[in-house]
Every structure is written in C-alpha cells, then in structure tokens.
C-alpha cells in the first residue's frame, strides 16, 4: 500500500516536471497561518490561539493556443469532518479565447462581483488586509459554477466585461434543485495603470433560502426562514495601487425580497488605505461597515463597524507578514444591542511557492 502511494506520488511529480519543462503548466501553492488575541470588551474575556489557515494548490495550464485550464483546490477548516479540515475545489475552469481579449469560460469560478473576489480569490499573500470585507461572511456569492463571457483590456480605457449564468447560492457543485440560475453582469475600466473602477449586478432566486457551496455565509445565514427569496446585489469597486499609495474601496448593496416582509436592504462598505513608505513596508488603515436590514430574511441581522490599523512587511514576493489591531463596534443602526464589541490583535503569515 505504501509502495503504491509512493509510486503514485512519483508519477505525479514526474508528470508535473515534464509539464513544467514544456513551459505549459504552472503549479503554485499558497497558504497562511495566523495568531489571534481577542478581547471581549463587555465580558472582559480573552481568547488567544494560533490558527492554521487555508492551504491552496493552484494550477494554470495552457492546453493549446486558445484553450487553458485553471484549478484551485483548497484544504481548509471544516468542523463537520473528523480531522476538522477538508479539501474544497474553489476554482476549476476552462477558458477558450475565441478572439483577442474575448473569452468564454466554463466551470467553477469566483464570481467577479467586485475587485476583491475577482483578484485575490483565496490568496492571502495578495490580500491588503488580514480579513476580507465583512460582506464575504454575509451575502456575497463567492463562487459560481456555470458559463461566462469575458472581455478585457478593450479600448483606451481598458474596458472589461463579464456576463455569467450559473448555479446559484443554493446549489452544490453537482446539483441545483429547480431551474433557477444565477445571473451576473459586471464591467470595469482601467483608465490608469494600477487603477480599476468596476460595478456589477447579480441576481438569484432562492427557492428555500438555503445555502450550498457558493457562499461563505454559513455562520450568518438565517436558517429559520425557508421560503423563497429574490436576491439582488449591486457592487461598486474602486482600486488604486501605485508605488506609494494604495486605496481599495468596496461597496455592495444587497436587496432581498420575500413575500413575508417585502424588500430589505443590506449593505457593506469597506475602505483600505495603505502607504508604502519603503518597497516592503506598508502601514495601513481599514474601515468596514456592515448593516443587514431589519426585515432581511436571507441573513441574520447584524450591524457593526470594524476599524483596523495594520502593518504589512514583505520578505520577498512570495512571503509576507501582517500585524493588525482591530476594533469591532456596534453600528449606529444596531437597534437591538445584540452585538458584543471586541478588540482583536492578529498576526498573519502568508506565503506562495
């Protein structure tokens, strides 16, 4: 058994080496490890722990002149498994470039609703802050399994578009009950090198307000309501990454409609500002305001503000460390008083090989 495993491993390595020698396959690994110190202000309790983050295997292969494949498989925490970790296919898609800068993509992809989800994916190495914007834990549809038309770098403004139809929020990677597809239309321009301004619209109809594998809202999902939900999201992103100043603004408005309570509006706005005072040193500030509408039946109610002060040091292009102090507060819209403020200190080491 051990010998068989060894032979299989050697065969896989051999295939990788041969493929690399032909310069058609690129294999990378990404991952991160964190240390947390949480202080709950009202209860005066402390949690302090290390945390093993996602371990990410990334493959990019050029199959022929027009066709390429991209795969991203992540091993990450999963409390429902015996080992508390489980593999997850995050991206597996073929791309056919039918015309210069115009492509058709098929497979599981990150939904290009905003800059963060389209650019950083699961690579903590590229994240400007330790955490994603809070919308990722509430209403943002992270993945889609389906088909996408994509254009990029068109015209003087480097216009780009994505139009996508696929399995939506309730689906798994192999099945979706009913005949409801999610729909996305997104566009962006890059008027200057390092600048990208984009907007998107996403629609999905959830028959039973359940969640599948395409959202990360597992802890914030309203599990008590099982009726239909019309789900819409409008997002705007502004990113500017230049030599000294880095700015990323992500704003999303989530509109849900139910027969019970009608329309509900939820939103999240995230702003990051970093300053590279040396090539490898970036102190930064971040603010993140999340509000889930009172009558939103898709997500659990939440209304909180998060402020962070951080510092990123890059050892080289393939490894960095971030230190971040965070303060979580109830937002002015939190009328329930059901959120416990906390202060947190985090360290994240992230790498790519």
């Amino acid at each position, binding site marked *: 058994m051990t010998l068989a495993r060894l032979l299989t491993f050697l065969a896989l390595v051999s295939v990788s080496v041969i493929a690399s020698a032909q*310069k058609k396959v*690129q294999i*990378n690994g*990404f991952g991160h490890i964190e240390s947390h110190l949480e202080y709950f202000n009202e209860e005066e309790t402390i949690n302090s722990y290390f945390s093993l983050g996602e371990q990410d295997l*990334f493959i*990019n292969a*050029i199959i022929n*002149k*027009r066709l*390429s494949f*991209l795969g991203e498989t992540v091993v990450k925490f999963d409390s429902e498994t015996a080992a508390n970790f489980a593999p997850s296919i995050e*991206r597996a*898609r073929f*791309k056919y*470039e039918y*015309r*210069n*800068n115009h492509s058709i993509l098929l497979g599981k*992809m990150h939904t290009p609703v905003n800059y963060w989800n*389209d*650019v950083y*994916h699961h*690579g903590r*190495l*590229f994240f400007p802050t330790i955490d994603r914007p809070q919308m990722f834990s509430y209403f943002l549809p992270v993945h889609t399994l389906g088909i996408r038309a994509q254009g*990029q*770098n068109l015209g003087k403004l*480097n216009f780009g578009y994505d139009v996508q139809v696929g399995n939506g929020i309730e689906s798994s990677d192999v099945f979706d009950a009913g005949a409801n597809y999610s729909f996305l239309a997104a566009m962006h321009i890059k*008027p*200057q*090198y*390092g*600048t990208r*301004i984009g907007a998107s619209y996403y629609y999905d109809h959830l028959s039973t307000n359940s969640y599948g594998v395409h959202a990360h809202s597992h802890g914030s999902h309203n599990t008590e309501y099982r009726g239909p939900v019309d789900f819409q999201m409008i997002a*705007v992103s*502004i990113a*500017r990454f*230049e*030599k000294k*100043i880095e*700015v990323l*603004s992500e704003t999303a408005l989530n509109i849900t409609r139910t027969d019970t309570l009608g329309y509900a509006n939820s939103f999240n706005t995230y702003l990051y500002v970093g300053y590279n005072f040396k*090539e*490898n040193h970036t102190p930064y500030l971040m603010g993140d305001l999340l509000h889930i509408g009172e009558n939103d039946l898709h997500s659990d109610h939440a209304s909180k503000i998060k402020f962070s002060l951080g510092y990123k040091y*890059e050892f*080289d*292009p*393939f490894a960095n460390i971030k230190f971040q102090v965070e303060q979580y507060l109830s937002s002015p819209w939190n009328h329930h008083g059901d959120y416990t403020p906390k202060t947190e200190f985090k360290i994240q080491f992230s790498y*790519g090989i």
Partner: protein
Amino acid sequence: MASNIIKYLIVMLVVSVSAHSFGQKEWDSIKVIGNNIGEKSMSQKSLIEVFRGQKNYWETNEGVLLILPSDKHPGAGIASAILYDMSISEMQKFWLAMVFQGRTNPPVFELNNADILTIVSETPGAIGILINYQGQIPPELLINIQ
C-alpha cells in the same frame, strides 16, 4: 450620496495621474525580438502594454507569449524598470498575482539572453527582450522600438 461618490471618483482619478517615463539610455540597452507577431516596429507604449499582459493575441493569430529575464539575469532590473516601473521583486509579485487572477497566461522567465533568444526563435507568438546583448540577432526576429 451620489455627489460624494462622484467627488471621490474625481479625487481618485486626479491622484492616480502619474508619469512612467524612463530615459533613452535604458531603452538603448534593450533589444526586442518577436517571432511571427506581425509587427516589425512598435511604440514604447505598445511594448509596455504587451508586457503588462494587456494583449492576448497578435494580428497573425498567434497567442502572445512573454519571455522575460528571470531575477538571476544581470539585466533583470533594467527590464523591470522599463517595462513595469518596478523593482525585480515587484515584477515577480505582479506576475504571480496576474496569473493567480486567471486573466492572463504566465510569462516564461529565462536566465540569460541566449535562452531568451532561443525560446523566441523557436516559439511563434513569443516576444522577449535582450538586455545589453552584443551578439547577432536574426533580422526576422528584431522589432524596432520607436
């Protein structure tokens, strides 16, 4: 709310206006070679756009394959400065991020000018730069930069 967003956008655009210019001396130190790319001359601006991954296909229908000096190449710093306005390290990070996004194919990094010349001459659609290169270049590969 809408007016604030418009003001924010205007400020962002104004702040982002920056010039990326390098002297003729650096440009004189490089030679650009391409294989069946359908162009015998190219502007500096167009070359920079190509090397920043903004073009996927040539007019000849060949896919763009970028050949860049690796960090061990003695002229890597010149290439990263001219083409990306970056250090070598920043250029590596730029490409790691670009490939991870899945919006462009990865370039090939070569250790020396001879390897760059070889792979370009053997690969239709490939474009590469030679830095401080004194050897012979097949005329059909040479691209004039204006």
